[in-house]
């Protein structure tokens, strides 16, 4: 699993990468009450705003961590946004993206580096 400075995790299976937010991010957000996911088939560029997530406190965007095409989204977290707080690094993944250039992930942090990053 790889991590971004924007507190997203990426889990690659071949060229399909599952993306979610970290436990740290979920904790900082507080109770999540609304999630809006992109449409399957959308082509996105790195840093595009692809997901809207609202907690009791604030609205946040999840940015596309890499270039690619959205191939699957997790409708379960739209139905029950609280799942994002319960299991952010497991069942509450956000979307799967087919990477255009997997080397874009090379510079991302591993788990140890991410732990250092969040202190």
């Amino acid at each position, binding site marked *: 699993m790889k991590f971004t400075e*924007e507190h997203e995790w990426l889990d690659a299976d071949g060229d399909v990468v599952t993306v979610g937010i970290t436990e740290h*991010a979920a904790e900082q957000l*507080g109770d999540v*009450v*609304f999630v809006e996911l992109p449409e399957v088939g959308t082509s996105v560029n790195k840093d595009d705003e692809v997901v809207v997530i609202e907690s009791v406190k604030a609205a946040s965007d999840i940015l596309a961590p890499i270039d690619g095409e959205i191939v699957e989204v997790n409708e379960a977290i739209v139905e029950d946004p609280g799942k994002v707080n319960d299991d952010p690094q497991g069942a509450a993944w956000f979307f799967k993206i087919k990477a255009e250039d997997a080397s874009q992930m090379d510079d991302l942090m591993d788990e140890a580096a991410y732990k250092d990053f969040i202190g």
Partner: protein
Amino acid sequence: MRTHRPERENWDVSEDDDGLKHTPLYDLHVSLGAKMVPFAGYDMPVQYPLGVLKEHQHTRAKAGLFDVSHMGQVVLRAKDPEAAKRALEALVPVDVLGLGEGRQRYAFFTNDHGGIEDDLMIANRGDHLFVVVNAACKAADIARMRAALEPEVTVKEITTRALLALQGPAAEAVLAEHYPNITNMKFMDVETLPLGGAECWVSRSGYTGEDGFEISVPEAAAVDLAKALLAHEDVEPIGLGARDSLRLEAGLCLYGHDIDSSTTPVSAQLTWAMQKVRRPGGDRAGGFPGADEIFSELAESCAQKRVGLRPDGRAPMREGVEIFASEEGGEAVGRVTSGGFGPTVGGPVAMGYVSSALATEGTQLYGEVRGKRLLVTVAKLPFVPQGFKR
């Protein structure tokens, strides 16, 4: 993930962390694991480890303890108590003379244009009036009262007392363990009671829509009283985050957001707080700032009205969201002044101002969220039934 700070989150005002004041309960908040944020010059708990959502639900189900010591507590005293009441009527469109001993009433200071300078509670405590005002407005409120009331009436800010609120359906039972006769108090009654070994000024009121009490306690006894209340299994500490969602569901205005110096009591739909005696035809009609403007609005209506707004979808409509009459085009017909997720409602709730012609319950409008116009329906306030013990 990139988090946008809500445009004007009420507990997240931009202030330096330096020079923030602490309430007498500060150390207790920190020891309970509270997340502290600057609010109106104070370092205040926005949430505890339970989190905003569960704190909200706990308050509706059982009881929540809030530290509201940042609010201004002011005693108005004159040789003749009637003189203090009469004098205060010059600042508020409310029947203060008719406020019985041991009773409290909601009021607001108005300005010369009929706008609202702050909202407040006025309690008749026999030989004096006890006034509670908003933290952010307290310096201006005290200056306003001093200018208008002194020297006949002394205006004394009480800085040696904390203010706690115990809110929720279990609040009465919890306090009854300390003072059994608390059950005799009715909504908006005020009494002096011994709680935690100290002389407390207690009112049966609050800002959550639930039954509950506000307790002014000497600061030396405040922490012990708070700890004693928190020791009850039904009581959890509640932060400003849940305080905001609770009051929003209860349809209660937040000063500086839902009401301010540009909104009048008529547009804010708060005329229920203006008793007949202060209205046209009443024995003491007028005599407060902006009476002419307010009376003309009472007679002829006003351009905009405050309404409840229930987004049809799941997306919260927060403060600043513009309201439109149609899905495309046209000018905004209103805006959201408070909005978010209502945990008890189980969906988004908001309030705001819309053109009076569109203020009828059931009117379908559109709120523009992230460039998309989403359906929102004008709804009855409050969003949740009131739990007051009348």
